[in-house]
């Protein structure tokens, strides 16, 4: 058990002294996850709105598809993005393999179904009379979208937080298309995987604690926001 206790002690030392390697991984994780969630919100909210609001043939199958994509394995996304951005792949010209944008692409694919499905569910759960009311008031399509989204902000916020948790904690995509390059594409999760494999528990524990702290922070601010909105 000594090594575990040692690990915790060293972990706090690393955090206290702001060990540059540890903080580089933290910075990378925060930047990459934030960028991917923002990007998937931008694409996912309109998509989720259409899916939850509009009636069209094939809607139910599309819904099933999106729900299936919720359990898309990260290693499969990693493989797919890798094949596309490798210099021999269709997007090879951009030279994206082993860069942060490559991870962002993969994580956006991971987060998009989460945002879409949860936004759709939130929109569906709204008062059925909202739409006729808006139409009667003479709202155009875009105004309907914006008002509906505003009404569903609780659900969308939950979607954003869920997606953030998912992308922040994934390993497969970051490892495969990021390459776990020290100071560049090493994230909290790939660093933990590497350090544990090497038997260096302290760094792993330090990073794990930070990951937990970020999750706590995000959820805490969410509940604070919700309380303010309800008041």
């Amino acid at each position, binding site marked *: 058990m000594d090594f575990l206790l040692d690990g915790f002690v060293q972990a706090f030392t690393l955090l206290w002294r702001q060990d540059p390697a540890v903080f580089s991984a933290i910075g990378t994780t925060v*930047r*990459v996850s*934030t*960028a991917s969630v*923002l*990007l998937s*919100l*931008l694409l996912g909210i309109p998509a989720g709105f259409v899916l939850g609001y509009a009636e069209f043939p094939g809607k139910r199958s599309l819904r099933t598809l999106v729900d299936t994509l919720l359990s898309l394995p990260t290693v499969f996304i990693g493989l797919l993005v890798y094949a596309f951005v*490798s*210099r*021999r792949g269709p997007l*090879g*010209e951009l*030279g994206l*393999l*082993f*860069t*942060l*944008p490559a991870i*962002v692409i993969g994580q956006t694919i991971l987060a998009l179904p989460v945002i879409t499905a949860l936004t759709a569910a939130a929109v569906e759960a709204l008062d059925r009379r909202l739409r006729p009311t808006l139409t009667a008031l003479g709202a155009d399509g*875009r*105004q309907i979208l*914006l008002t509906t989204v505003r009404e569903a902000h609780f659900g969308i916020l939950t979607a954003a937080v869920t997606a953030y948790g998912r992308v922040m904690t994934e390993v497969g995509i970051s490892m495969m298309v990021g*390459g*776990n*390059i*020290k*100071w*560049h*594409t090493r994230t909290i999760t790939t660093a933990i995987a590497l350090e544990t*494999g*090497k*038997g*260096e528990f302290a760094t792993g524990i330090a990073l794990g604690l930070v990951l937990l702290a970020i999750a706590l922070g995000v959820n805490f601010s969410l509940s604070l926001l919700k309380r303010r909105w309800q008041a």
Partner: protein
Amino acid sequence: MRKNRFIIAAVMILGLALCGPAVAGEALMMATTTSTDNTGLLDYLAPEFTRDTGIPLKWVAVGTGKALKLGQNCDVDVLMVHAPEAEKKFVADGYGVNRRRVMYNDFVLIGPKADPARIKGLDVRQAFHKIAEKKAFFISRGDNSGTNKKEIKLWKLAGMTPPEKQSWYVQSGQGMLSTINIAAERGGYTLTDRGTYIKYEASRKGKSPFAILVQGSPELFNQYGVIVINKQRCPKVRDDLARRFSDWITSTRAQKLIADFKLLGKPLFTPNAGAR
């Protein structure tokens, strides 16, 4: 409504800004074996290289097989690997140019101090036979790395096929240091380069559960080389930077740095760029 448009624009700019600075132009991208990374050699050399040349060095640490594949796919600019036969083929096939020797160490067969298969001091062929005979746990890299290629060759030298499907033969599919850790957990034998093993000993503060049981035969020699990716096949490759690295790592200064890289007072690699 104008406010909404503003928010969307702000979000987009923020998103771009977050991943923007990462698209660096002038960095050299290297694929290398896990031993040069796990031992800390590259963490020690990279800042020196950047200071001497002004070129930032990035590397992915994968097995030699994967590294060669990355070179073949034009995804990296330079390779530092350790599988001379595969390297020669790589150059002969036109994927790489200017292969040069950098340094060497040797492979050692390590196992539990109690040595259940009784291989201590044996010839490497006999040792492999003994392990198979006693069905002692053997942890293989199983990842087509330089070490894995060597191990397969040693099984063949011993007149056997690699015992892939035997329950005592475990393929880790991971880097060298991880594989040594797995061997420690399972109480098994494994083949490792001496540098990574010294690093392992150092991280255990000298309290290693292993002993080096077989060493010193010429089959266990482990040569590392540097290869520049062929620009004629891969137009996007930064071969100018790659050549600077190749020149630097074989220079007197870098070779001295490699010789001075020690853990527990033992050198991990021996430079031999000058040797004919």
